[in-house]
């Protein structure tokens, strides 16, 4: 029987994977993938908590909003990455060094 705990463990693993991807990868696209993992972890949390702890519909609605906003954010982020790629011909985060004090 799958309980709340197993969902929470999976979402925590997803979150940690996302954070590791953000910190360790140097490719901007990979960082954005890590970001999606974090958002999906929180959507999973909302659904799991609603399913096992209370019957209010708030959690489901919140997870729908997370999905929509994640899509919008990914679209804008990829557009900006595309601009950056057309100008610099790289998607490596270490090459973004024009702006420094």
């Amino acid at each position, binding site marked *: 029987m799958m309980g709340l705990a197993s969902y929470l463990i999976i979402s925590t693993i997803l979150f940690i994977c996302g954070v590791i991807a953000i910190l360790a990868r140097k490719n*901007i696209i990979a960082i954005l993938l890590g970001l999606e993992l*974090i958002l999906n972890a*929180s959507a999973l949390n909302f659904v799991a908590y609603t399913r096992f702890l209370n019957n209010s519909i708030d959690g489901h609605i919140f997870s729908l909003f997370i999905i929509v906003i994640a899509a919008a954010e990914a679209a804008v982020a990829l557009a900006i990455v595309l*601009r950056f790629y057309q100008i610099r011909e790289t998607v490596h*985060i270490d090459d973004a060094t024009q702006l420094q004090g």
Partner: protein
Amino acid sequence: MNINYLANLSLYIPEIMVIFTLVGLLFIEATYSEEEKGRKLFFGVMTVGLVLALLALVKNLGVPPASIFTNAVIIDPFSTIVKILMVAGTLFTIYLGQQSRDIYSNMKAEFALMAIGVLVGGMLLASANNMLTTYIGVETLSILSYVMATLKKNDDRSSEAGIKYVLYGGVASGMMVFGISHIFGVFGSIQFVEIYPLIKDLSSLQMAILIPSFIFFFVGLGYKIACVPFHMWAPDVYEGSPLPVTTFFAIVPKMAGMAILLRVTMIFFGPENTVMHVSWVGVLQVVAALTMIVGNVSAIAQKSVKRMLAYSSIGQAGFMLLGVVVIDDIGVSAVLFYMITYLFMTLVAFFITSFVADKYGNDHFERFSGLGFRYPLMGVVMAVVMFSLTGVPPFAGFIAKFNIFYAAINQKLYTLVLIGGLTSVISFYFYVKVIRFMFFTPAESEEKIGGFGYINQGLITALAVPVLFLGIFWSGLITKIVHSKLFFVQ
């Protein structure tokens, strides 16, 4: 139920007006973007729409506070005042965007559209009353800001600013929503009103989940106001973006973030003395101290005025945070007064910097040489604003800082006040550096600066009048703010 819902709408008229303006502008832009007539129509409709929204907001000041849309949005004097400041800031910033050469002429309409979109998010955030509206507000604010930072499409600095903003912002809001998910799990609700009675007695297991969750939640809000552990993006994004966009970032997102942070702190962590309260306030105090120190100290070494103003706005956010930490009504009104003066000081400083930078192509301190002799009025106005940002009497900045320090001393936060005072003294150096260049260095050239026509000079002077006026006749406004019950919890 249905009738109540419609009655709610009448309180939401300002936002509806801004949204309709946005939609109308999109149609106008799509239809007439090529013609000169369309440009005039565009900016006419925009001005009328925003001014009507301002009037509706002023009318909302008088109505009794209410919580509408099944407690998702709250209309109280505090949120209404913040919204007035944000709408006014947007209006002036769009005017600056129209005048400035830093935004290409085919992008001016887009700049206005994005700015109004961000404004909608900011207004939602200022009156958010549950976790969902908070999250949507933060995201609406952020997603459009990313695009605004990249507005100079072919400039590599601007695209780099966009990249940095989108990565930092995305991670911060991801952390925030992860924190919210666990807060929801523990309390079983996303409504602020239903959460705050439960926060007083918690089991230790709940506490173990909640303390990290609230810290995650704070990451999302803290990055919007650029307070210190999460400020890394701010100087780079401010420098890479076009100047009117920087002006906008220094005003609207910062005020909206400060408003929601203040609301969350006031509602959840009121006067009780629980572990949650102590840890949240402890985090805020450390962050406020670090923000004041880092913001003001890093500004010293900057060569560009724009970057100096970016660090200075971080430092100013630190002073506002000091007012948030106080957590009482005096603190709230002090923060509001600070926001009012901050709006005018920031607008004037950025207007002048923007016109100077347009002329010479960069905004290093040397470009201000001799400005005080070539344009005496502008020189004096800039000097007034710089003194006011430092906090020298008799200008408004002094009164604003005085109110914050007064509120903090009332709550015995002596260390923080000491740090605030010392960093104000440090900030004197880099603010006065601008004045030194304007009045004590010979001019580099005698060419006219195109931006300083009579209309613009008049507008800048008019914006600086409140800085002087509020510095001397401040007691009326402050008593008005103190005596109105700003916060409303329902």
